C-alpha cells in the first residue's frame, strides 16, 4: 500500500486506482497523512508564492498602479497567514508525522485517528480562510491583525472573522497533532531507545510540540477575545471603554515569538540529521544541541516584548527584554557551532541535500544576525516596520526553515517514494533558488536602512529605491521559477528517478532500516538500539559512539493519561490568559456594574460546592473501578453527572438574571471579562458532562465489564481540572464578596 506504486506500476487496472485514491481520504496511516500534509502545503505554497509575486510586481516600480491599496493589504495579509499557518507549520508537521514513528521504531502514531483529524482540520481551516475572498474580501489587517485596525469599525468586512475562525480550527488541529506527537515520542519508542538516544529530529519535534501546545492557546485566547469584540460588541481591545489595544499585542506576541521557534526547530532537526550523514561523522556535541533546544523553547516565552519596543512600554521594560532577547541568541549560536564542527574533519559529500544544508547555515546566520540587531532597542526604533524586518524574517524563515526543509526533502524523498530525486535537476534548482532568494531579500536590508517602510502598497521615487525594488522583483521571479523546478524534479523523479534501496545514503537512524517506501506496518523487525546511531552500531559493533548513555529505566508513561495531562496543560494555559485579562481589567474598579453590585455570591457558593462534590464522587467512581465493583462505579458516575448538571443550571440561572438586568457581555469591561471567563469555563463543564455521559453509556452497554478501559480515569482527570479552574475563578470573582 504505497503511493509510489500508483504512479510507477502501469499495469494496475483503473478502478483499482480509483479505490486506492479514495482510500487516501480515510487513511489513518501516519505515512499517508504525512504525504497528504506535504502535498497540501505545496499547493498552499504555490498560492502564497503567487500572492508574493503579485505584490512584488506592484512594488517593482515607484508609484505603481497595478493594485489598489486595499487589495495590496489583503495580499500581504494572506501571504503571511498562508505561509506561516498553511505552509511552514503544516509542512514541518507533515515531515514529523512521516518520520518520527519510523525513527523511534514505532508502528504508527499513538492516536492514528486523531492524527487524521488534525490533517483534515488543517485543510478545512485553510479552505475556510481562502473562502473569505469570495465572501466579501480577504482579511486585510496583516497576519498579526493588530487591534484596533482589526476591530469592526476599521475592518468591517468579514475577512478578519474568517481569519479568526480558520485559525481557531487549525489551532485545534495543531494542538491535537502535538499532543499526539508528544505521547508517541514518550510512549512508543523501541526498546533501548531512551530519551537521550533519540535522533535529534525526534527531539526537536518533541520540544516543538511542547511549544505548540503552549503557544497556540495564547493565540486562541487573543483571537477569541477579538472575536467577542467583533461579533458581540465587547471592548477587550478598544480604548473607548477602557480596553487596551496594547493587550492584543502582548497576547499575540506571547504566541508570536514562540511561533517563530515553532517554525524553525524541526528544520534544525532536519539539518542535524542531514549534516552528520553527509559529513560521515556523528553530530558534534549531541547534548549541547539537545539541551540548547530546551533552553530556546523556554526562553522563547520570555522575549515577546521585543516586538513591542516602539509601543511605549517604558525604557525599563525595553531594557529587560533587550537583555533576554540577546540571551536567546546564545543557544541558537551554540547549535551553529555544533553543525560546523560536525562538518570539520568529516568526509563531505556534496549532494543536493547537503548543499541546501550548507546554504541553510549561511543564510540562517545572516537572518540571525539581522535579528539580533533588533535586540538593541534603539536600532529597533529605527528599523521597525521597514523592509529590514522583511529581510530578516525571510532570511530566517525562507533562507533558514525552507532551505532546511529542502535539505530534508532531498534526504528523505528516497525513503518516501522509493526513488532518488535527480541530482542534476536538484543542483540546478538549488543554485536557482539561492540566486533568486538572495537577490530578492538581500537588497531589502538596504531598502530598510534607506527607510522604505513595509506593508506599503507603493513608495516615492527616492534614489536607489526603484532600483533595489526592481532587483528584488526580478529575484522573486527567479525564486518562483526555482520552485517550479522543484515541482518538476519531484514529478520527473517519481516516474524516472533511480530506484533507491533501503539506505541509499548509508545513514544510521531507524527509518533507513526498512524498505523504501516502508510497508504499512513500518518494520518487519526493529533493529536493536544500543546508541544514538543504531545502524552504525549494527555494522560497527567494535566502534561504538563515545557517548552512548545506557539507562536502567526509561521514562515511559501510559499514553492515555499522558495525552490528557498534556491537553490539560494546554487548556490551563488558555485559561491563564483569560484569567489574566480578568485581573488586568478589574485591578481598579470599572464604571458600571461590578462583581459587588451584580453577583449573588452565596447562590454561586452552593453551586460551587456541588461542583467540588462532583470531583469527590468521580474519584469514588474511579476507586470502585479499581476495586472492580461495577454498580458502585456506575452509581457514583451518575451522581457526578447530576452534580455537574446542577452546577451548569445554576450558572445558567445566574446568566439569565444578569441578562434580565440588562447586563450583557458588551456592557462594560467587568461584564466582558466575567462572561468570557465563566462562559469558557461553563463550556468546558458542558464538554466534560458530555464526555462523562458517553462513558456512562459505555458502562451501561457493558464495555467496562472486564474493567480494562482507561476512559474513566482519563475523563476524571479532565473533570478535576475543570473543578480546579473553577476554584481559581471563584476565588478571583466571588470570594471577596463573601468575606
Amino acid at each position, binding site marked *: 500500500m504505497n503511493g509510489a506504486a500508483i504512479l510507477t506500476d502501469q499495469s494496475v487496472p483503473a478502478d483499482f486506482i480509483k479505490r486506492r485514491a479514495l482510500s487516501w481520504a480515510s487513511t489513518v496511516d501516519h505515512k499517508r497523512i504525512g504525504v497528504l500534509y506535504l502535498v497540501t502545503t505545496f499547493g498552499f505554497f504555490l498560492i502564497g508564492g503567487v500572492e508574493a509575486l503579485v505584490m512584488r510586481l506592484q512594488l517593482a516600480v515607484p508609484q505603481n498602479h497595478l493594485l489598489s491599496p486595499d487589495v495590496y493589504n489583503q495580499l500581504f495579509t494572506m501571504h503571511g497567514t498562508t505561509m506561516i499557518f498553511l505552509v511552514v507549520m503544516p509542512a514541518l508537521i507533515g515531515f514529523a508525522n512521516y518520520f518520527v514513528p519510523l525513527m523511534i521504531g514505532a508502528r504508527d502514531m499513538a492516536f492514528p485517528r486523531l492524527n487524521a483529524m488534525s490533517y483534515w482540520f488543517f485543510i478545512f481551516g485553510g479552505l475556510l480562510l481562502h473562502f473569505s475572498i469570495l465572501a466579501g474580501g480577504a482579511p486585510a489587517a496583516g497576519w498579526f491583525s493588530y487591534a484596533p485596525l482589526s476591530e469592526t469599525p476599521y475592518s468591517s468586512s468579514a475577512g478578519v472573522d474568517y481569519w479568526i475562525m480558520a485559525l481557531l480550527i487549525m489551532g485545534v488541529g495543531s494542538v491535537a497533532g502535538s499532543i499526539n506527537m508528544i505521547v508517541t515520542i514518550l*510512549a512508543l519508542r523501541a*526498546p533501548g531507545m531512551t530519551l537521550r538516544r533519540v535522533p535529534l529530529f525526534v527531539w526537536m519535534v518533541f520540544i516543538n510540540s511542547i511549544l505548540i501546545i503552549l503557544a497556540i492557546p495564547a493565540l486562541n485566547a487573543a483571537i477569541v477575545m477579538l472575536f467577542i469584540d467583533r461579533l458581540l460588541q465587547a471592548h477587550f481591545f478598544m480604548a473607548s471603554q477602557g480596553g487596551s489595544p496594547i493587550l492584543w499585542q502582548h497576547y499575540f506576541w506571547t504566541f508570536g515569538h514562540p511561533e517563530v521557534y515553532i517554525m524553525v526547530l524541526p528544520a534544525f532537526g532536519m539539518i542535524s540529521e542531514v549534516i552528520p550523514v553527509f559529513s560521515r561523522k556523528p553530530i558534534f556535541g549531541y547534548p549541547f544541541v539537545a*539541551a540548547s533546544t530546551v533552553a530556546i523553547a*523556554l526562553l522563547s516565552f520570555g522575549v515577546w516584548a521585543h516586538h513591542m519596543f516602539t509601543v511605549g512600554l517604558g525604557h525599563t521594560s525595553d531594557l529587560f527584554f533587550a537583555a533576554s532577547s540577546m540571551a536567546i541568541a546564545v543557544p541558537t549560536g551554540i547549535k551553529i557551532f555544533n553543525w560546523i564542527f560536525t562538518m570539520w574533519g568529516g568526509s563531505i559529500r556534496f549532494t543536493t541535500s547537503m548543499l541546501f544544508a550548507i546554504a541553510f547555515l549561511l543564510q540562517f546566520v545572516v537572518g540571525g544576525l539581522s535579528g539580533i540587531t533588533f535586540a538593541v532597542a534603539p536600532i529597533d526604533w529605527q528599523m521597525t516596520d521597514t523592509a529590514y524586518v522583511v529581510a530578516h524574517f525571510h532570511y530566517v524563515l525562507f533562507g533558514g526553515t525552507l532551505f532546511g526543509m529542502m535539505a530534508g526533502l532531498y534526504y528523505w524523498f528516497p525513503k518516501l517514494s522509493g526513488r532518488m530525486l535527480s541530482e542534476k535537476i536538484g543542483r540546478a534548482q538549488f543554485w536557482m533558488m539561492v540566486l533568486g532568494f538572495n537577490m530578492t531579500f538581500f537588497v531589502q536590508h538596504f531598502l530598510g536602512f534607506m527607510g522604505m517602510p513595509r506593508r506599503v502598497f507603493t513608495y516615492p521615487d527616492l534614489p536607489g529605491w526603484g532600483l533595489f525594488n526592481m532587483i528584488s522583483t526580478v529575484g522573486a521571479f527567479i525564486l518562483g521559477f526555482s520552485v517550479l523546478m522543484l515541482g518538476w524534479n519531484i514529478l520527473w523523479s517519481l516516474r524516472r528517478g533511480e530506484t533507491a534501496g533501503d539506505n541509499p545514503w548509508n545513514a544510521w537512524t531507524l527509518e533507513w532500516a526498512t524498505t523504501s517506501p516502508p510497508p504499512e506496518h513500518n518494520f518487519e*523487525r526493529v533493529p*536493536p538500539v544500543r546508541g544514538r546511531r543504531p545502524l552504525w552500531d549494527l555494522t560497527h559493533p567494535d566502534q561504538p559512539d563515545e557517548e552512548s548513555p545506557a539507562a*536502567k529505566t526509561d521514562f515511559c508513561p501510559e499514553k492515555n493519561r499522558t495525552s490528557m495531562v498534556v491537553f490539560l496543560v494546554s487548556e490551563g494555559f488558555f485559561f491563564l490568559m483569560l484569567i489574566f485579562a480578568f485581573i488586568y481589567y478589574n*485591578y481598579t474598579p470599572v464604571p458600571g456594574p461590578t462583581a459587588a453590585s451584580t453577583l449573588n455570591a452565596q447562590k454561586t457558593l452552593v453551586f460551587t460546592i456541588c461542583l467540588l462534590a462532583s470531583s469527590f464522587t468521580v474519584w469514588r467512581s474511579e476507586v470502585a473501578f479499581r476495586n472492580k465493583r461495577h454498580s458502585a462505579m456506575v452509581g457514583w458516575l451518575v451522581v457526578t453527572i447530576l452534580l455537574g448538571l446542577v452546577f451548569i443550571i445554576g450558572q445558567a440561572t445566574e446568566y439569565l438574571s444578569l441578562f434580565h438586568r440588562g447586563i450583557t457581555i458588551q456592557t462594560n469591561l467587568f461584564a466582558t471579562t466575567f462572561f468570557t471567563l465563566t462562559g469558557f469555563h461553563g463550556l468546558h463543564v458542558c464538554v466534560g458532562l458530555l464526555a462523562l455521559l458517553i462513558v456512562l453509556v459505555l458502562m451501561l452497554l457493558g464495555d467496562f465489564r472486564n474493567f480494562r478501559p482507561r476512559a474513566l480515569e482519563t475523563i476524571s482527570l479532565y473533570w478535576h481540572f475543570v473543578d480546579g479552574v473553577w476554584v481559581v475563578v471563584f476565588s478571583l470573582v466571588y470570594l471577596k464578596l463573601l468575606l
Partner: protein
Amino acid sequence: MVIGLCLVALAAYVKATKFRLTGRSVYFIAAVMLIFLTLSSPVNTLAAGYLFSAHMLQHLLLLLVIPPLLLLSLPECNPRHLIGRTMDRFRLHPVAAWLAGLCAMWIWHERTLCEAATTTQAGRVIQIISLLGLGAIFWWPIVGPQKDRRLFPLLGVVYLFSACVGCTILGILITFAPVGVVCPVYLHPVDRLGLLPLIRDQWGITPAKDQQIGGLMMWVPACGIYIFGVIALLARWYRTAEKTSDVVTAETGSPAPALSHRSIGEKA
C-alpha cells in the same frame, strides 16, 4: 545580628567539615555570603521601606538563590543517621513542593502582608524565615540531598518552567499595575536616613519606575534563574553515562512493537 549569625554559621561549618573544603563547601559559603548581602548590606537598607525593587531583590535571593545553594551544600543522606532515617520516612510530593514555592511568592505581594513585612519587625522576620523555608521545600525535588528522590530531569524541567510561568504572571501584573496598588508603603517612604533625594533625584527612580523595576525583576531575572536551573538539570542528565550493559539483551533485535505495548519501565 545578621553578621553574627553568618560568622557563627561559617565557623560551625568549618569545624563540622574539619577544615576539609569540597565542592559542597563552595555552595555553603556562597549561600552564607549571599545571606549576608541580602540581609545586611545596603540592599537591606533600601528594601526596608525605600525601594520596592530592592525588596524584590531580597525576595528573589531568599527564595530562589540561597535555598538551592544551601540544599546543594548538604551531604548525601545517610540512612544510618537519625536525620537520614527520618527524612526517608516522609515523602515530599512534588506538587506540594511546587505549591509551597508559588504560594510563598504570591502571598507576600498581597497588600496587607506586604505592608506588614516592610513596616513591622515581626513581619520581616516571618517573611525571611518563610521565604527560606518554603524555598527549601520548593527546591527539594530538584536539588535535595536525597538523590534518588529527585524528580526525573524532564519532569524537573516542567516543574521549573511552570514555576517560571507563575512567577512571570505575577511579574507582569506588578509591572503594569497602577502604581501603589501592590505595596502602598513604598509610595511615601519614611526617610530615616536622608536617602530620598539621592534616590528620587540623582538616580531618578520614581515610585512608578520603582514598581516597574520590581515587577520586571520578578519577571525576567527570576525566570533566568529557573532557566539556569533547567540547563543545570539537563547538563546533569546528559552527563550521566553509565556504560553498563544495555537494557536490550536481544542480539537480533525485537519484533515490530504493537501500538501500545511497552516492554521496559512502563508506568501504568
